[in-house]
């Protein structure tokens, strides 16, 4: 081999070792959260370009979709007006029932009921890797978003859990969904009230595994799983999903259940970040 060829080979190997070493060091620091600020800074630099790119692609898609859907718009408008009238009547009735309910609660002295103050956010991007399932929303520190705030969504007219905020920038935040392998959620079976720990299974599957459930608990297919409120991140009682299978080992004191999340992460467009719990009645 000539000197030139030998030099080139040496450069290749030195470069490889250097790049792998840098990657390895970053992984090490990343796990100790020392590079958290570096990651945030790096993402803050990349974010404007990423956001602009994502919006451009979605803009092009929306443009073609809107042309395609134009003919249906008139009919939809008429239908929407009819639906709106119907909902206006329902809201009026709801307000009446709410007032009556509050009055009755006061009369019989029921304890406080809680609701949540939320901020609506649009999902602007997701992880480009099949390996991760994180999503990015268009609300950040300037909207009052903080780390570990719970994130919910409304699907099929039901409030259900999406995940929690794990990283906040000024104009964006990153959400770790409950299906992520690093997500742990205090959960319980709504019917039997037995609690356990819900662990995400992605990228292996889009289901979650409810672990450490007392073996005495009777679990059936379709049982609803809700947040238990333990751990202090998620408020109690938010719907997570439904049991699809149960695994009971012969030995041991616990059983496990596979849970299908109520949220369809593929169709998720908007989410609500719970900023604080508010009392609506006393």
């Amino acid at each position, binding site marked *: 081999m000539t000197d030139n060829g030998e030099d*080139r080979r040496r*450069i*290749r190997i030195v*470069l*490889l070792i250097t*790049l*792998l070493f*840098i*990657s*390895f*060091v*970053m*992984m*090490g*620091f*990343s*796990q100790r959260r020392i*590079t958290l600020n*570096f*990651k945030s800074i*790096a*993402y803050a630099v*990349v974010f404007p*370009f*990423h956001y602009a*790119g*994502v919006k451009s*692609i*979605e803009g092009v*898609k929306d443009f073609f979709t809107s042309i395609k859907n134009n003919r249906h718009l008139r009919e939809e408008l008429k239908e929407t007006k009819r639906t709106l009238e119907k909902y206006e009547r329902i809201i009026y009735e709801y307000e009446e029932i709410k007032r009556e309910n509050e009055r009755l609660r006061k009369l019989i002295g029921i304890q406080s009921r809680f609701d949540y103050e939320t901020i609506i956010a649009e*999902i602007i*991007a*997701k*992880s*480009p*890797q*099949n*390996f*991760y399932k*994180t999503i*990015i929303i268009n609300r950040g520190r300037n909207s009052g978003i903080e780390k570990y705030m719970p994130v919910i969504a409304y699907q099929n007219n039901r409030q259900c859990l999406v995940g929690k905020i*794990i*990283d906040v920038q000024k104009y964006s935040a*990153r959400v770790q969904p409950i299906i992520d*392998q*690093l997500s742990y959620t205090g959960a319980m079976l709504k019917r039997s009230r037995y609690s356990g720990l819900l662990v995400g299974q992605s*990228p*292996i*599957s*889009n289901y979650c595994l409810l672990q450490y459930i007392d073996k005495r608990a009777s679990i059936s297919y379709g049982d609803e799983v809700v947040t238990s409120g333990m751990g202090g991140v998620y408020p109690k009682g938010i719907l997570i999903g439904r049991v699809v299978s149960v695994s009971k080992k012969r030995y041991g004191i616990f059983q496990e259940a596979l849970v299908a999340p109520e949220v369809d992460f*593929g169709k998720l*467009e908007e989410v609500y970040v719970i900023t604080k719990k508010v009392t609506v009645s006393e």
Partner: protein
Amino acid sequence: MLKKYAIFLFIIGALIVFQSTFVYNSITVRDVGPDFLMIIVVAISFFLGSVSGEIFGFITGIIADIISGGLLGLSAFTYTVIGYGVGLLGNKIYGNYYILSIFIVFVATFVKALIMAMLGSLFIKPGYFGFFTHGRIFLEAVMNGVISPLFFLIVYKIENRVTG
């Protein structure tokens, strides 16, 4: 030379953005989609050699890691190794590039999954090794393989046109 690199960087940037939009979801099967980033790294490495391959692999991986919010350096490490390996192969394999591309990308997907699973087990959580053994990676490998000739064609055309 610089113009060629700038074009490749632009393509990588566009692919990263595309892969992080929900438009990308429409081409997924059972929630698994092709990894355009890995395919472009493989194609660049094949035609430009291992030095360019490892540099492009590192840059692509680090940007993907930043946007993913996952373990910083995981994709960078993986794509660097793939870039280097495929770059070495590029000089030694002869035949129809487009047929070769299917085989190389198919194998590279498994190498990617293996490295990611091992590093994931080491730095994130032991269970991450499951990604390699699960059938989803086979599906991704097939998708990547099917799409790869298109990427090889694009990189080949750019390489030839800009170089000479």
